[in-house]
């Protein structure tokens, strides 16, 4: 029988299982520390960083222009009108918050499942969560029309003697999203404290020592502190897991609690959560592949990571496909409701039917290529696939919101939707803001958790007295 077509002595392959290694062999505590901290502590910022940062900054300026005009003129500059009161703003909100979910999945759920491979990618996946939530949180706020009164959403004693209405999913959303943003920031920062201590100790500039020193809150690596830290990390992971599942469920209630055909369905919570993780993993791949190439981190973000992320994408994509087919089954075969039947027909073959077929192509048809191991292990193809899935998931939200709203029960109130340039500028602007924040993050903070990578090295194994001691650290 022919053996598998793999090189026998490839150092990146595990000789027993034939799987890709999580970390390239030959690393020591010192070498991983240096490899990760040099990106932050180098006095020579790569030119490419400035180039990308400047472009992202330009797009952020465009966002500021769009927002200024919005605040001056009001939401009428967007295409929202009756009957489509929720346009791009809510599409983008749901899309961005979904992207954030993969970060929490990687940092929390995979931690609980003891998936060691997550360690290299969890820090920047968490950063991605926070920046995505920043972009997402902006949309409901600017969508309310008078964002300077956004604090009215929160319950606080006021001279008007008015309190929020707690039976509305829109208010549940306020608490779900604000909790999610807070917990994500806390989890991210707490996870970074030991690494900030490393940067404090290794920084050669006074400013660096001071700033990282303050951020590291005096972390000195005492094992007593480490034990409490580990407990707190596990607890936060245990809390973030139900949180992340609840956030997109609550967002889906915004739709599912309404009576509109295409929204009023019980499959929404699980199907939204799976879709969120699907698009989030796509975004992690979109970010990881260029970063790993640009900063030469192939030793730490290996083919194993890309392969695994491709598999998660495939699995969640299939759950999403199940969600779509259930919707079709419910409306065509099971509901016995004329309105439901029409909604699905309109979604597929109505004036905006093209968007449904874009979504099916991007989210279901093309991702089937991920079954192939060769495809998953080709970084360029995987990168393109991640972009396709991200676009597909954006279209999913577009289809749910726009096609359902354009044609509801009453034909006399039907309308159509065509986004304006301000819609496009605001959406593109948040992509710029996300990239802008990400550029700052990879330049000034450690994007791979050094302490967790050290723990994964073979040197970290405690050997009993009888065993010979391994070679010294370096």
């Amino acid at each position, binding site marked *: 029988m022919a053996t598998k077509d793999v090189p026998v002595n490839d150092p990146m392959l595990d000789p027993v299982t034939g799987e890709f290694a999580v970390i390239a062999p030959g690393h020591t505590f010192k070498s991983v520390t240096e490899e990760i901290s040099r990106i932050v502590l180098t006095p020579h910022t790569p030119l490419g960083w400035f180039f990308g940062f400047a472009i992202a900054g330009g797009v952020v300026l465009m966002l500021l222009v769009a927002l200024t005009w919005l605040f001056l003129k009001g939401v009428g500059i967007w295409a929202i009108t009756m009957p489509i009161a929720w346009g791009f703003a809510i599409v983008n909100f749901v899309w961005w918050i979904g992207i954030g979910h993969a970060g929490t999945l990687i940092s929390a759920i995979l931690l609980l499942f003891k998936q060691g491979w997550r360690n290299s990618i969890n820090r920047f996946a968490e950063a991605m969560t926070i920046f995505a939530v920043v972009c997402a949180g902006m949309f409901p706020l600017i969508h309310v029309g008078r964002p300077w009164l956004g604090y009215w959403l929160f319950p606080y004693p006021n001279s008007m003697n*008015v309190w929020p209405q*707690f039976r509305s999913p829109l208010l549940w959303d306020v608490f779900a999203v604000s909790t999610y943003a807070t917990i994500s920031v806390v*989890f991210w920062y707490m996870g970074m404290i030991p690494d900030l201590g*490393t940067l404090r100790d290794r920084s050669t500039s006074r400013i660096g020592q001071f700033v990282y020193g303050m951020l590291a809150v005096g972390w000195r690596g005492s094992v007593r502190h480490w034990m409490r830290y580990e407990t*707190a990390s596990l607890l936060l992971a245990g809390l973030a897991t139900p949180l992340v599942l*609840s956030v997109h469920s609550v967002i889906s209630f915004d739709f599912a609690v309404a009576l509109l055909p295409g929204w009023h369905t019980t499959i929404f919570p699980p199907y939204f959560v799976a879709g969120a993780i699907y698009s989030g993993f796509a975004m992690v791949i979109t970010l990881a592949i260029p970063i790993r190439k640009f900063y030469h981190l192939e030793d730490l973000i290996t083919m194993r990571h890309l392969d695994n992320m491709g598999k998660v994408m495939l699995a969640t994509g299939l759950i999403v496909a199940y969600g779509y087919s259930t919707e079709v089954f419910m409306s065509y075969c099971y509901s016995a409701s004329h309105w439901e039947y029409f909604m699905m027909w309109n979604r597929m073959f109505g004036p905006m039917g093209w968007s449904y077929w874009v979504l099916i192509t991007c989210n279901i048809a093309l991702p089937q290529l991920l079954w192939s191991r060769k495809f998953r292990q080709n970084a360029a193809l995987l990168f393109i696939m991640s972009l396709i899935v991200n676009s597909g998931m954006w279209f999913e939200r577009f289809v749910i919101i726009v096609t359902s709203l354009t044609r509801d029960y009453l034909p006399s109130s039907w309308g159509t939707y065509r986004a304006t340039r301000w819609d496009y500028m605001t959406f593109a602007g948040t992509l710029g803001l996300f990239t802008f924040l990400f550029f700052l993050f990879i330049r000034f903070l450690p994007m791979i958790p050094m*302490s967790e990578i050290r723990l994964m090295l073979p040197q970290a194994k405690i050997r009993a007295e009888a065993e010979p001691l391994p070679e010294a*650290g370096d």
Partner: protein
Amino acid sequence: MPVREGTYGLLAEFDTPSQLVRAAKSAYNAGYRRMDCFTPYAVEEAAEAIGFHRNTVSLVTLIGGLLGLATMFGMETWISIWAFPLNIAGRPYYSWPAFVIPAYEWTILWAGLSAAFGMLALCGLPQPYHPLFNAPNFRNGASSDKFFLCLESTDPKFDIVATRGFLDGFSPVSVVEVEY
């Protein structure tokens, strides 16, 4: 606060976690109690070796979570029944199933904040200054690739000469005296 002077403790440096765990175990068995290990990542065995088995972060988190749950549920009930009763499509004022969702979110919020800030508080952090930062080898190594055992001078068994001799027995890279 009076300025403390003198020796904080003796700091032994090791290259591998196994050496550290061995030394820490022996020191604990020899009767030292005021001691600590410093490692660049979590070494559970070292914590076990110096007799640190349990911590109270989980308890703090549980209390925080329950407080969050009670606060939000109580606030929702108070607002909906007494402060601002609204008739929403004829639903009862006390619509507890709807109140569960924000209460659930605040359970997680308060528990998460308690876990993170409780952990820092139990560790006595933030504490930007610590005598150990006076040792140059500690600053260079403790957060990247070296493993340290510190026997503190406040331990009744501590004696600068005898303790140094005891630590030298584990063939550390160095043993340095740390000043306050």
